[in-house]
């Protein structure tokens, strides 16, 4: 277990909903509701889910952009919330960096690329101008840009190149963990492969850990070592990526995979019937009782609407579903 870099335990984030002049709290949006995960050194964990699942809130919590309602984040075994301000500044923030989804808005349009990449160094280190300069050129080279591009402004680059700049900035301080929030979803198809390959190469080279936030399952399968599927603020299935994609246990995971898998028109006549969920994700303000997925689940049984399922471990996977209450009973349609 020495290999764990970051661990989230029972992370919970409720946003109060207020009403009226007196800001009376009338309820809570349960954005993240008790999720736990671990990120190992040099590995990738992906949080997958549809919009409103709470994955971005979880990532923001790791980046300390959101204060959790409850739960602990352990970084190399130490409780991040117990760090002093200066400890955070020296021991946590520089080591946890991020690349954001939209390369068009994640950079200050008034700064040159040189200064954008240098920003973390200027803020966090006491390096001289010359040291920073050479580090910036080194970083540009690592992400496949040429040194003479350092003096341009962000708008002079294409989306793919900008995402390379964002990666260079994230690597400037030699971080241990990089949070990648939908790192390729804003890019063109032919450019996505370039960036995903780059990220994978860099991970190998520097033993980086990634926390990937994504909704595209194919991207996730390519990038990840382990995967957590989120639904309405909770993790419904969690496990090693390969096992999870080969044998998804939770009905929601199965529906997601079915919706994302490529089926050609002629396949449709065969037995690859698509699972099409009815309805939409309920509001996190009023999550349904029992299993949160039961309102859309085709395999729901009586108990699902009454009792929230416990986490069961099956092989390398953890699943939160009543279908697995009795370890002997496996869902008939799992394939």
């Amino acid at each position: 277990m020495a290999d764990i870099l970051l661990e989230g335990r029972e992370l919970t984030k409720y946003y109060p909903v207020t009403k009226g002049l007196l800001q009376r709290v009338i309820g809570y949006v349960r954005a993240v509701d008790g999720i736990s995960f671990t990120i190992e050194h040099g590995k990738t964990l992906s949080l997958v889910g549809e919009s409103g699942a709470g994955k971005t809130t979880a990532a923001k919590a790791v980046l300390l952009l959101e204060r959790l309602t409850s739960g602990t984040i352990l970084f190399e075994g130490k409780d991040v919330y117990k760090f002093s301000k200066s400890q955070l500044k020296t021991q946590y923030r520089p080591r946890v960096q991020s690349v954001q989804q939209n390369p068009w808005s994640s950079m200050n349009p008034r700064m040159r690329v040189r200064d954008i990449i240098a920003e973390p160094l200027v803020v966090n280190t006491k390096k001289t101008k010359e040291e920073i300069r050479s580090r910036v050129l080194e970083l540009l080279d690592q992400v496949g840009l040429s040194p003479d591009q350092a003096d341009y402004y962000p708008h002079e680059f294409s989306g793919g190149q900008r995402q390379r700049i964002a990666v260079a900035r994230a690597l400037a301080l030699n971080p241990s963990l990089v949070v990648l929030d939908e790192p390729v979803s804003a890019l063109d198809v032919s450019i996505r492969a370039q960036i995903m390959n780059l990220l994978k190469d860099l991970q190998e080279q520097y033993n980086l850990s990634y926390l990937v936030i994504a909704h595209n399952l194919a991207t996730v399968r390519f990038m990840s070592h382990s995967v957590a599927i989120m639904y309405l603020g909770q993790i419904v299935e969690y496990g090693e990526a390969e096992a999870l994609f080969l044998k998804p246990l939770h009905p929601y995971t199965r529906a997601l995979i079915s919706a994302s898998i490529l089926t050609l028109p002629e396949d449709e006549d065969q037995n690859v019937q698509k699972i099409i969920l009815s309805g939409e994700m309920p509001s996190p303000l009023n999550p349904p009782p029992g299993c949160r997925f039961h309102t859309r689940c085709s395999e729901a049984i009586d108990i699902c609407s009454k009792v929230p399922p416990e986490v069961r471990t099956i092989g390398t996977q953890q699943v939160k579903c009543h279908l697995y209450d009795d370890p002997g009973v496996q869902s008939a349609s799992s394939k």
Partner: protein
Amino acid sequence: MLSTMPNIDTKLKLKISGLTRSARIMRAMTFYIPVIILVLLVLTAIFAPWLAPHDPIKVSLLERRLPPAFVEGGSMKYLLGTDSLGRDILSRAIYGARISLSVSLLVIAATAFVGTALGIAAGYLGGRTEAFLMRFTDISMAFPGLVLAMLLSVSIGPGFFTVVLALSILGWAPYARLIRGETLRLRNSDFVAQARINGASAWRIMLIHIFPNVINPLIIVMTMAVGFMILAEAALSYLGIGIPPPDPSWGSMVADGRGDIDRAWWISTFPGILIALVVLSGNFFGDWLRDKMDPRLRQL
């Protein structure tokens, strides 16, 4: 038609480039003419002592209410005629440019600085700071400016400084509102989040990341304010709580001619024309700047 709406974004981007020749010339004119007028006025203000043919405050009772040179009875000595005390209107207008422009620029500099600082602080820091600053701004905007100007004029006496103070004390509020709005938008932008992830201090974020990105709207509003401030100064002077006589400002010149408007129209008219020119030029130039700086229009 809801189902057939065109792609709005593409449409906006391409609007400008598709202009016809005459429309393009018109667009250029609305830029060059105001700029030339404003530059000439600034030069006039700077070089007033060399340009003015007469002493602006020298009274010559024998030459009262002389009409301009191009009107019957006028002489080449006083190109734009004289006022009720026989002072040269042209010279007074030239010196008046000094006072009117410097009041306007000083007030704009002071209000823009204060308003931007408070706006960024309110927008970025949020919470109680914001609530307090914004209520304060609301109060400033609701306060009757004229009453304040009169109070100041009575308590510290009329003068150049009083006018600047009276216009500045309330003038920062619109800037604070505008800049706070911009800051709120920027605060939620990805690059500010990124700066926070990097560990940048609030001070650094406000100065390095937010301020440069509010400069565009700021400059536009400042330009538009040039005309407005000249009008405000004129209004104060017209009411007699502005620049005290005998120093000329355009507003006080218009006020001076008020009683003579039926027999000596030129006393009020010429400074009036100048005020209108500057206000229009400022507004046109501001409009042009806004078009120029709109990133959606700048692309092509």
